[in-house]
């Protein structure tokens, strides 16, 4: 429903200080290492993130060919949990905040 002029309320502008900056999302990175098998990396990505075989394979190849791949992006809390699970499977994994 469209608002009429009389319903429109103008809110004061709020200045965001340093501590009030809107949080940028966090990336979960998987890094290449020469020991982990390619088939295993793809398997773990499917198991933890529920990705399709094609998507897991594409991400695994990105890790292998480019040295790293962003396998998930979102809240810091979940990113920490995913990195914990990936490292628990002995993959090289890190969290990194998305650059603003």
């Amino acid at each position, binding site marked *: 429903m469209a608002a009429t002029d009389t319903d429109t309320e103008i809110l004061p502008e709020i200045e965001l200080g340093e501590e009030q900056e809107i949080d940028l999302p966090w990336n979960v990175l998987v890094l290449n*290492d*020469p020991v982990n098998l390619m*088939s*295993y990396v793809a398997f773990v990505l499917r198991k933890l993130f529920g990705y399709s075989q094609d998507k897991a394979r594409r991400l695994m190849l990105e890790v292998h060919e480019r040295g790293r791949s962003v396998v998930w992006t979102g809240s810091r809390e979940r990113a920490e949990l995913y990195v914990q699970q990936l*490292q628990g499977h002995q993959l090289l994994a*890190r969290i990194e905040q998305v650059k603003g």
Partner: protein
Amino acid sequence: MKLTTFSDEAWGFSVLAGHEVELLRNIASAADPVGCGDAERRLYQPPMDEPGEEEKTFLDDWEDFVTIEYRQQFVAAVAVVEGDLGGIEPCTDDCAAGQEGEAELFSLRIPVAHAESWFSALNQARLVLANRFELFDSRGEEAVSVSWDEGRPVATLAAGSANAHSPNERVFAYFRSQAFGFIQEWIVANVFTRGF
């Protein structure tokens, strides 16, 4: 050595020669990172690179809680493997059928539920061997290459690749790592992916 799925609940090894039994019994000692800082750091990783000062508490908590959990988890996996190895028994006539020679052969049956522990222990062993014996250079290239001469493998160390261990020890570590990797590939293809 032959890898087999026995049923939905078990997989394992058959036609194991004595030296292959020794290879499997070597998994636990190969997986022990003690005395190798690089292997320790590879197994127990930080959650982020180049953290700022504001991450100190997070990193301390990670060290205190998450790393300890990994240690327990990894040690438990190796213990499962060691327990399973207690079940190695001489091959039955069926298992040894078609095999030449008179050397004693063995078999080992492992519950499917233990496959993740086996994979983890084998992976720990390969990660530790790779770091302890520097089996890869800084670009991830293998330090050992193998060629074949009249059916025999001939291993060569890359030029300039030095390590505290002798070339023979490093080549032996390389072959152990390759054998463990072969078992891992089989587990991924035949046990892990059954449900996918």
